[in-house]
């Protein structure tokens, strides 16, 4: 495990009690509303906030153990931390910012150039943080954290400081950069879209407790708390887009009305947007499939119909429609989806 943290701590009078893990190479999103305690969990793992009770292991080394009285100071934990709004040292150039960690730990400086190149910031190296855009500052902050060769990367709301347009672009690029990092990454965010695009696994934190923990697509499809349900309840597809056609990683294609996205994307589809038909549907829907029902389950006043695809789909219909269409596992059915109902996000 990159990190295995059992944390019990208090911030003011607010109690936090979570058990969080992250495997090497895995990206975990800590998703939750503002004030849920996500950032405090991150700060506790980094050693910037004290632990009341519990045990934290980073890459197999115990850095906190309340029972054994172990508390390693932040500077000896080998954790990379990307702060919200980045906190670049204003009196240093970009290169000096990135070199600060290696110089502090006695690491050789070759990592500095590697990350400057990897993050495409070579032409910014001599600038001061005040001369950087939000997206550039984010890349510098990431390079600075990675240059110390950390065993674990922690990112606190890495996209919150960016405006909407930059955010989409940076989010897509961030996923690529994280793919280069072989250790675990934990990202704190209050934006479900950040979690869906960036994370392999989503851990939902509400009121200082974990309320859901599962693979991203599963959490997206089956949100278990009201907070999440209001935001999610979508089917997630990873694929690559070219002029509006998305070739899904798990097979099949989706046609989207957004023709600008190119390369790796995450496509989101609301189950309510998929219509089911006995006969081949006529009309304007750009996506139609003749597919097999693989399962049916009731979901409140809706019924979720799972379809084989490809790609595998979930349609939400009324109980009346299930009867009318005589839907049952193994039955063939036509499904249709309008291109405007496929939302595409660069990843």
């Amino acid at each position: 495990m990159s990190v295995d943290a059992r944390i019990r701590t208090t911030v003011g009078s607010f109690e936090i009690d979570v058990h969080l893990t992250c495997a090497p190479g895995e990206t975990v999103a800590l998703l939750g509303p503002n004030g849920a305690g996500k950032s405090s969990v991150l700060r506790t793992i980094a050693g910037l906030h004290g632990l009341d009770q519990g045990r934290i292991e980073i890459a197999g080394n115990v850095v906190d153990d309340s029972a054994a009285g172990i508390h390693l100071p932040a500077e000896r934990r080998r954790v990379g931390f990307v702060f919200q709004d980045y906190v670049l040292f204003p009196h240093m150039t970009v290169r000096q910012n990135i070199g600060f960690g290696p110089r502090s730990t006695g690491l050789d400086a070759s990592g500095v150039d590697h990350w400057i190149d990897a993050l495409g910031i070579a032409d910014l190296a001599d600038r001061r943080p005040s001369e950087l855009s939000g997206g550039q500052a984010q890349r510098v902050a990431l390079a600075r954290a990675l240059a110390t060769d950390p065993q674990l990367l922690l990112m606190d709301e890495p996209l919150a400081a960016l405006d909407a347009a930059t955010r989409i672009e940076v989010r897509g690029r961030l996923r690529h950069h994280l793919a280069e990092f072989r250790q675990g990454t934990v990202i704190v965010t209050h934006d479900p879209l950040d979690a869906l695009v960036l994370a392999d696994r989503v851990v939902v934190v509400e009121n200082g407790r974990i309320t859901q923990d599962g693979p991203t697509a599963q959490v997206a499809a089956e949100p278990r708390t009201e907070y999440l349900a209001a935001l999610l309840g979508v089917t997630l597809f990873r694929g690559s887009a070219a002029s509006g056609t998305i070739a899904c990683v798990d097979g099949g294609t989706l046609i989207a009305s957004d023709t600008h996205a190119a390369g790796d994307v995450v496509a989101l589809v609301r189950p309510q947007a998929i219509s089911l038909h006995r006969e081949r549907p006529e009309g304007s829907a750009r996506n139609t499939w003749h597919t097999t029902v693989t399962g049916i389950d009731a979901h409140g006043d809706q019924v979720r119909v799972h379809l084989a695809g490809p790609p595998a789909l979930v349609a939400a219909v009324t109980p009346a429609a299930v009867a009318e269409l005589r839907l049952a596992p193994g039955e063939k059915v036509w499904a249709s989806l309008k291109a405007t109902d496929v939302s595409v996000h660069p990843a």
Partner: protein
Amino acid sequence: MRTPAPRLLIALAMVAFAFLALPLIGLLLSAPWGQMTELLSTPAARDALRLSLVTSLMATAITIVLGVPLAWVLARREFRGRALVRGLVLIPLVLPPVVGGVTLLAAFGRRGLVGQYLYDWFGIQLPFSTAGVVMAEAFVALPFLVITVEGALRVMDIRFEDAARTLGASPTRVLLRVTAPLIAPSLVAGAVLAWARALGEFGATITFAGNFPGVTQTLPLAVYSALEVSREEAIALSVVLLGISFAVLVSLRGRLLGGRG
């Protein structure tokens, strides 16, 4: 769009400004400009200038060496009685300087709390010595540096230090490479204010160190003594002090005059 102002307010503001400006104008108009070089090159004047410069710079150095750690402790450490400590630190700001001199005598005088041992064991006598001048000046100047630096430490985003720590920097490295550069402008401002206060020190100095030409007679003391003999010399020395004050103001204009930072 300017807000309309009551006329009485404007009138009083003009009186206030005149009240502050007229004495300065008076000093400059009555200055014996033709004899300046001559008046300032008397042995007494040169001794006072040299002594003032040396003692005020030494006092400033002491306030930096001792004041920065004190400011850091007040800003960053929670401990019982912190409010009391901060209150005590600020006392020299509001204490009449003469009383400050008396308290220094009580502590470091030949029969003082600490002074008796300094004298009995080491033969060190601080009152009425040049070292005493430095002490008196440091005593009144220290609070200026401490409050300026402490304020800067409090306002500074603590996450800069957090970031440095997660990057593996030891506490000393965080202090020297991150905290110190970030508060440097305030440290400079605090040091300049402390120096200006030390340079102008009169009450505590004359009480604790006396008024001996060449040993403890600094510029303000020389002005006071000169007034009894030569008004011209007093004015000439005053012009020098005014010039230094003006230079201090200019160097701190961004911070004190609300101009660009």
